[in-house]
């Protein structure tokens, strides 16, 4: 499968998030009921339930709608991209940034991850070399055959010239 992704939709304390995009009020969580706990299938204490709710979910209707709207746009972007690239080429992806959201005020040097780190990075050049070498060898063999058997790779024309 060409495209395989994970979406992490929301984190408390803006973890992984750049605060300049969506405004997420840090108000206290309210509204968690015993019924919703029961629906979730687990017995939780009120404090741990509130902690979990705020850790994984927006804490107001407004921020909830903003989060959902943003990810709906992302899903549509993904769908459009996949529609435009149903069979993308897969010749070793170029370097990607490892992490792009350092904590506020911390100047972290941007790391670059190379495909196949840990030995795999040498695979692509070796593979290219192998393909080129194999093709060159095959070409030489075929040319040699062509001299013996007229009709191979233009050998027929060469033989015809000789016969003339």
């Amino acid at each position: 499968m060409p495209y395989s992704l994970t979406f992490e939709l929301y984190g408390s304390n803006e973890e992984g998030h750049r605060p300049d995009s969506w405004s997420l009020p840090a108000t206290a969580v309210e509204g968690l009921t015993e019924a919703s706990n029961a629906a979730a299938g687990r017995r939780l204490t009120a404090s741990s339930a509130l902690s979990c709710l705020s850790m994984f979910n927006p804490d107001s209707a407004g921020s909830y709608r903003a989060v959902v709207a943003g990810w709906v746009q992302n899903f549509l972007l993904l769908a459009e991209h996949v529609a435009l690239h149903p069979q993308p080429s897969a010749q070793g992806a170029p370097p990607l940034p490892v992490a792009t959201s350092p904590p506020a005020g911390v100047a972290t040097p941007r790391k670059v991850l190379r495909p196949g780190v840990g030995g795999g990075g040498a695979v692509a050049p070796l593979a290219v070399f192998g393909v080129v070498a194999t093709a060159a060898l095959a070409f030489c063999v075929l040319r040699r055959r062509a001299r013996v058997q007229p009709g191979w790779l233009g050998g027929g024309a060469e033989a015809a010239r000789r016969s003339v």
Partner: protein
Amino acid sequence: MAEVDLNRNWATAWRADAGRGEDEYGGAQPFSEPQSQALRQLAQQLLPTAYANVHSGEWAVYVPWDHKRALALGLPTDTPQLLEQLNTHCKCTRGAGGAASNYLAYGTSMDWMWQGARGRSRGRVRLFLHTGEWSTHARASPRRAACAVLPDLRAVRQQ
């Protein structure tokens, strides 16, 4: 309840090191759970072009690998372009899951969908969207492992 983290129950880099009762318990064996079996069967039948699984706990868009700190070799060449497009809206962490989150996850669906179904797309545009897992995601913080349930969003109070 089998108490299996469904996003640790896939065959790629599956590990048995988390025991039953732990938050990242991946099951007795890969695909031990009917939910992951069903998704695998669906993927093998439809051979989709893309797969997205949805979690919560942080802001991020990840691509393989989850189980090692490296970008999978052979990802589509337009992967960086796609991630930048997605970042237009999420403004978030993006990159290889294990490297960008600094947390390795074994037996995840993303890694299996990439490796297990590699090169098996029919070229038709099909997109899987798979939401979450049974237990909560404990990607970046052990604190999260204490939370075993993703509460119902309907509980969010209208303001």
